[in-house]
């Protein structure tokens, strides 16, 4: 029973991982550029939610879309101001561009909000459910279900709408898309916006049940890399399955080996996958 | 035979990009690989160069089985290539680019530089020796790729659309260069879209269509082969026979 409890809470956390990793995989598949600041975007969204609640007294119904909007703008600005330019440059510039951004965001948060952990009140969304002996906090349930729904929604938008097929066309072949009258620059800016907005929602959701600190983004970035590598680069369904899987693996290893080693297991798995199947478990060769 | 490819198949899932192709290359000849877009000639070419490993079939170079050998082993054995989209080393000068090739057979800098200087003079790049590779235009880059390949002192040179995207005047210069390379005793396999090039350069043409070799022989005869005419679009062939650059 305890094991089942662990698996369920792993799945709920994994759904949130899947959500922000979908954003990373979208950006990645689109232009083959990694956002090293992805986890730090999530961190910003967590603080956005925190301050929206403590300073403006806004509840989840407001701060979740609010964080998404703020991060959407940030994503577009980062694309237009930085990524668009470094993407054409040497590999060193591509890596240092977003990596430097990660440092700026992380330590600016450190400076502005101090290293102290903060958190939203536990009872923001009412209490704990008891489902057949399983105890699930309402905030985690809401977070998991909402994250799952939005990830699936993202997948549907990408595969079923005109806009989605335009985005995918640019990811597939930039020049061919241009010939069809699609403006790749706009689509890529949009992908960065949507990718960042996914961290906005994910961050606001995590903030409801997780502590908030300036350096939390570092391990979240690594988790996003792991999920994207496992799920195959550019694949939202892949990210969904891999995100849920990583959530469960993390929860199980924390329970079975100890919380200190949960990251060790995830990182080791990541390296193993990169070494054995560089194209990802679900990607094609 | 310098190079023998037998029954080469390259499958991507159910799709066979190359479907049982054979090729013999005798020492000293210039062979042209032609065929419409997507005919599989580039994939086949990459198998020959060791850049891709065929699903089935064998490739022998100078009597040795090189089917699964790495690209660097191909270079050591005496096979050099150019790329469809030139990949020059942007941070280096033209001479340094060529020296990378020369280092394959000469461990010392001075010796490598001597070989590079000779190749640069031979390819007409000596005036540009000290300019950065990134400042070259497409014709310069294509020429530099050929120079770099020659510096590895190959017996067989594989040229992947080395003349595509050049102006007619540049094409004539490049054709002259290829002739001079042949005069050095180097065998050449050339993949080309421009029929004019094949007609004026190649001693033998091999036509690919849907992954298979559908015709081989003297270029003039091959161009008139009915199977080849149907493979290409009719109006395209007319343009080609008038000597246009397709």
């Amino acid at each position: 029973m305890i094991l089942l409890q662990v698996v369920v809470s792993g799945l709920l956390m994994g759904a949130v991982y899947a959500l922000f990793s979908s954003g990373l995989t979208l950006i990645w598949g689109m232009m083959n550029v990694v956002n090293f600041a992805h986890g730090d975007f999530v961190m910003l969204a967590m603080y956005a939610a925190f301050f929206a609640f403590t300073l403006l007294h806004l509840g989840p119904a407001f701060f979740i879309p609010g964080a998404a909007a703020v991060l959407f703008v940030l994503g577009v600005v980062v694309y237009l101001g930085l990524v668009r330019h470094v993407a054409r440059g040497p590999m060193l510039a591509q890596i240092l561009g977003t990596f430097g951004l990660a440092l700026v965001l992380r330590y600016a948060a450190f400076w502005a909000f101090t290293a102290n952990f903060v958190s939203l009140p536990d009872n923001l969304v009412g209490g704990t459910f008891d489902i057949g002996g399983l105890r699930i906090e309402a905030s985690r349930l809401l977070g998991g279900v909402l994250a799952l729904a939005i990830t699936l929604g993202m997948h549907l938008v990408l595969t079923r709408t005109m806009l989605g097929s335009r985005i995918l066309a640019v990811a597939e072949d930039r020049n061919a898309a241009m010939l069809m009258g699609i403006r790749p620059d706009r689509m890529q800016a949009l992908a960065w916006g949507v990718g960042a907005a996914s961290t906005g929602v994910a961050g606001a959701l995590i903030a409801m049940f997780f502590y908030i600190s300036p350096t939390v983004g570092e391990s979240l970035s690594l988790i996003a890399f792991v999920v994207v590598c496992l799920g195959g680069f550019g694949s939202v369904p892949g990210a969904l399955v891999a995100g849920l899987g990583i959530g469960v693996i993390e929860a199980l290893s924390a329970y079975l080996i100890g919380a200190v080693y949960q990251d060790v297991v995830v990182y080791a798995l990541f390296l193993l996958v990169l070494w054995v199947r560089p194209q990802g478990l679900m990607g094609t060769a | 035979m310098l190079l023998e490819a037998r029954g080469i198949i390259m499958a991507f899932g159910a799709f066979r990009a190359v479907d049982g192709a054979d090729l013999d290359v005798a020492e000293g000849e210039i062979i042209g690989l032609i065929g419409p877009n997507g005919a599989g000639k580039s994939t086949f070419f990459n198998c020959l160069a060791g850049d891709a490993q065929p699903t089935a079939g064998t490739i022998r170079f100078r009597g040795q089985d090189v089917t699964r050998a790495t690209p660097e082993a191909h270079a050591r054995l005496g096979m050099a290539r150019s790329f469809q989209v030139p990949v020059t080393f942007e941070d280096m000068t033209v001479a340094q680019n060529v020296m990378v090739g020369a280092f394959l057979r000469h461990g010392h800098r001075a010796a490598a530089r001597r070989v590079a200087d000779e190749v640069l003079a031979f390819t007409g790049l000596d005036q540009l020796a000290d300019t950065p590779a990134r400042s070259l235009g497409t014709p310069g880059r294509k020429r530099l790729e050929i120079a770099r390949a020659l510096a590895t002192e190959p017996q067989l040179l594989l040229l992947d659309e080395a003349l595509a995207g050049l102006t007619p005047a540049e094409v004539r210069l490049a054709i002259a260069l290829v002739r001079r390379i042949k005069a050095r005793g180097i065998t050449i396999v050339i993949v080309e879209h421009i029929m004019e090039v094949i007609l004026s350069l190649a001693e033998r043409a091999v036509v690919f269509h849907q992954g298979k070799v559908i015709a081989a022989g003297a270029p003039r005869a091959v161009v008139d082969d009915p199977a080849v005419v149907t493979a290409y679009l009719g109006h395209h062939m007319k343009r080609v026979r008038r000597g246009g650059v397709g």
Partner: protein
Amino acid sequence: MKQWPLVLLGFVAIAAWPLLTDDVFLQRLGALVLLAAISASAWNLIGGYAGQVSIGHSVYFGAGAYASLVLYTQLGWPPIAGAPVGMLVAMALAAVVGTPTFRLRGHYFSMATIAAAELARILVANWKLLGAAVGLMGPPVPRSVVDLSFISPVPYHYLFLAVLVVLLGLTWQMQRSRMGYYLAAIRGGDRAARSLGVPVLRYKLYALLLSAAFTSLAGSLYVVMVGFIDPDSALGILISVKMVIVAALGGSGTLFGPLIGAIILVPLEETTNAVFGGSGTGVTYIVYGAIIVLIARFRPGGVADLWRSITVRMARRAA
């Protein structure tokens, strides 16, 4: 090279630095600049020359630092005696980490190095023999001169300078040899390099082994001077980041780039630390981050590249 007189002048100035001032802060600054230049120059071998952007070099730095202090705490050896051991351990780690990761391209390589370094940090932080989260201390009082424990920073300055000169001399030789050309070709593109007969994986490994060995030596030198390490100060991601920034600012893949970068960045870091006190670390890294964003955006070649374009422009004007 027409710039030899300038280079010679630079090294004379660096050698004279501790004699020009009595201020311990400034003397210490000189030693720290040289130490940062050593580790960034070591990173430069793989990250700059071969173009494989490792963000996990803290692993090798930590190998040297921990080897030196473990041999002291367990066997009572003087910390510097751990340096060769650390270099061997670092090279072994490099072979283990490098062989599989070199098949990865660009970003994937960088991500793999970050993950490997984080893995190492967490494992060490929970490893009793290595002092776990608390860390390890060197000899509290020097037992003999071999402990290389001095109050004045000046002896360290000359020790570090000697190591830097050896490393740069080796790098210069390497740059002019076949290996230098091959690494530049690898940076230019694996596929083209291989078509010219460059054994790409082997040369990447050579570069990483050399790089790891000297990074480890830098780690040993660091503990010899500072006398204390913990998982964050020897294995934290910021250790890796600093090597990358110093090299990239000065000019990655150039001989003197990392030294130039260290001369600019280390005084900046020490000054912000002195001005802002405890909260200085945060500010330092905001500045670091901003600097690499600006380099990436406007001048990926770093200061060395800027210098080159200025001299070219001046030469043109003179002509």
